[in-house]
């Protein structure tokens, strides 16, 4: 490095330059996570095994309860809008696993950096805080696609669920619309990490609420009226419902526009709220010196 480079005055880059640099940093954060993941190859086995094993247990349970009786399957189809019990459960659990990943993601990434001792080093760089927050979870989008791919493969190959390329494409669209809402929630948990240094209790609670209300393993039509109202205020309800609609009921994208619009609006609101919350907690951490405390 030359002396001249260090002593010459440097103009501040334009906002556009900063955005470009931040986007590159997003990519670098994803690459870093991917490299770290590659150092532990056994994790790949887990990612292959778990999305199949967990829902499969529930499929067997459902078969046990219904006894495979046409009347029971009809009753289910009336409530769920599809007779594909396996597809219904697999999609519910795949979504649950993805949501869990996202809820844990940003908060856990910050917490890991905090415990490792690298959080202050990250905060001393000029990169946008959004990169620090969301960068490490970029790689999780790849995992989500992988997981949904595995689930789709199992449904087609072992349960004969007819999922073609168009259905898969529509499902991808639904997933992309849901990304802001879910990542907004994840970012809120990251603020909790900076404020309280721990996120597990809150993530477990929210995950529990999602499991009970959002219809991961059952159609929400069976819920009491008040519980249905709760369900409709939670983004995962729309995500799961719309995924089942495009993959199992053959719905087209246009018919889902109202629900997707709600999901997108929730995403905007949650992301805005998360950014404000994160800025406030970062300020709090800088005032109280809690960035390096855990």
């Amino acid at each position, binding site marked *: 490095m030359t002396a001249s480079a260090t002593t010459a005055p*440097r103009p501040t880059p334009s906002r556009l330059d900063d955005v470009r640099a931040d986007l590159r940093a997003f990519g670098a954060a994803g690459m870093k996570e991917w490299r770290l993941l590659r150092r532990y190859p056994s994790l790949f086995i887990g990612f292959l095994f778990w999305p199949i094993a967990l829902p499969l247990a529930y499929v067997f349970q459902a078969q046990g309860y219904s006894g495979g009786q046409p009347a029971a399957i009809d009753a289910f189809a009336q409530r769920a809008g599809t007779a594909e019990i396996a597809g219904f459960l697999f999609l519910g659990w795949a979504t649950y696993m993805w949501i869990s990943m996202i809820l844990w993601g940003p908060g856990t990434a910050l917490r890991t950096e905090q415990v490792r001792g690298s959080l202050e080093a990250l905060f*001393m760089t000029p990169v946008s805080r959004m990169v620090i927050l969301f960068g490490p979870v970029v790689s999780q989008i790849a995992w989500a696609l992988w997981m949904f791919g595995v689930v789709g493969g199992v449904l087609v190959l072992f349960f004969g669920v007819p999922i073609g390329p168009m259905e898969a494409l529509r499902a991808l669209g639904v997933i992309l619309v849901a990304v802001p809402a879910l990542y907004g929630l994840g970012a809120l948990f990251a603020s909790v990490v900076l404020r309280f240094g721990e996120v597990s209790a809150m993530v477990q609670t929210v995950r529990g609420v999602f499991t009970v209300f959002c219809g991961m393993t059952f159609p929400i039509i069976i819920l009491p009226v008040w519980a249905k109202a709760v369900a409709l205020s939670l983004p995962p309800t729309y995500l799961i419902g719309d995924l089942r609609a495009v993959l199992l009921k053959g719905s087209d994208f246009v018919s889902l526009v109202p629900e997707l619009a709600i999901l997108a609006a929730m995403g905007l609101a949650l992301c805005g709220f998360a950014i404000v919350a994160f800025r406030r907690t970062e300020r709090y951490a800088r005032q109280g010196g809690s960035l390096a405390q855990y």
Partner: protein
Amino acid sequence: MKPGYTGPAIDAVGLVKEYERGRRTTWQRVRRHPDQRERFRAVDGIDLRVERGEIFGVLGPNGAGKTTTMKMLATLLEPTEGTARILGYDVVREARDVRRRMGAVLSDGRSLYWKLTARENLEYFAALYHVPPKEQATRITSALQAVKLDDRSDDYVERYSTGMRQRLVLARALLPDPELLLLDEPTVGLDPQSSRDLRDRVRDLQAQGRTVLLTTHYMEEADQLCDRIAIVDHGKVVALDTPSGLKRTIAATEVVHLEIESSPADAALLSRLERTAGALARQEHENGTLQVTVHVRSARDFVPVAFDVAHEENAAIKHVEVVPVTLEDVFISLTGRALRE
């Protein structure tokens, strides 16, 4: 630095950082009980003016406020009072501009990703420092060469020694090609060879035209490296000068350490030694012996007299050591305590 700015690299005025001691429970918050936590000042009105191109040291014992000061300058902490400008940019209002132009070593090798190679670590941080893609490879190679790790750049960091990790942390701080480097206790935990190595790298950085602010509680390090030194204690600057200027504040050229067998007549002995030397820099009892430190113009004149006084007071001097004045003595003369206490 800011275009058109001609001032110092660091200009801090009246920096204060206040914390609360103790805790306030959630119940107290909910009930809105008055906050009865004691407030204390980790940094209590520090003024620093570091000129461009100099190596400036902040020397002080643990808990003196060195790291807190560094964190405020590094934009990690907001000052409670006072202002600080780095290369013309305010550390609170223009924090992002400060971060673009500054490299900092405020942590040890833990802050690296041990399951990545050195180069992979630097690739990630180069992106976070907004290094342009075209310059990235060159910048990383230069940083690795600067800390003499270029031949081990593709090894996992977990295989590095402590000293190598610390050098890699320094390489990371060089990625933005910084005009200013903040180094907080950069040689803590390193063996003498690694410490020497790192100090050489710091001198190289100054030769490249960079400004370096470093904190340390190793007086030799401050003495050897720094153009100027601020001695801090209890969050305040108690002295600021060149190393030789600081040593000149002591009206002595030599320091005599006496180890005396403790006896009931210690008080009388100390009183007579004080009268002979003018003042005792330090005195303490340790394992049945009385340790006395005296600053004198001539040890040759003082030591025989000290033996006579001890003899007359029925005390025995067990050990005598005469050393030149160091920054430690300056610190003792200013605070009455040793740096490592």
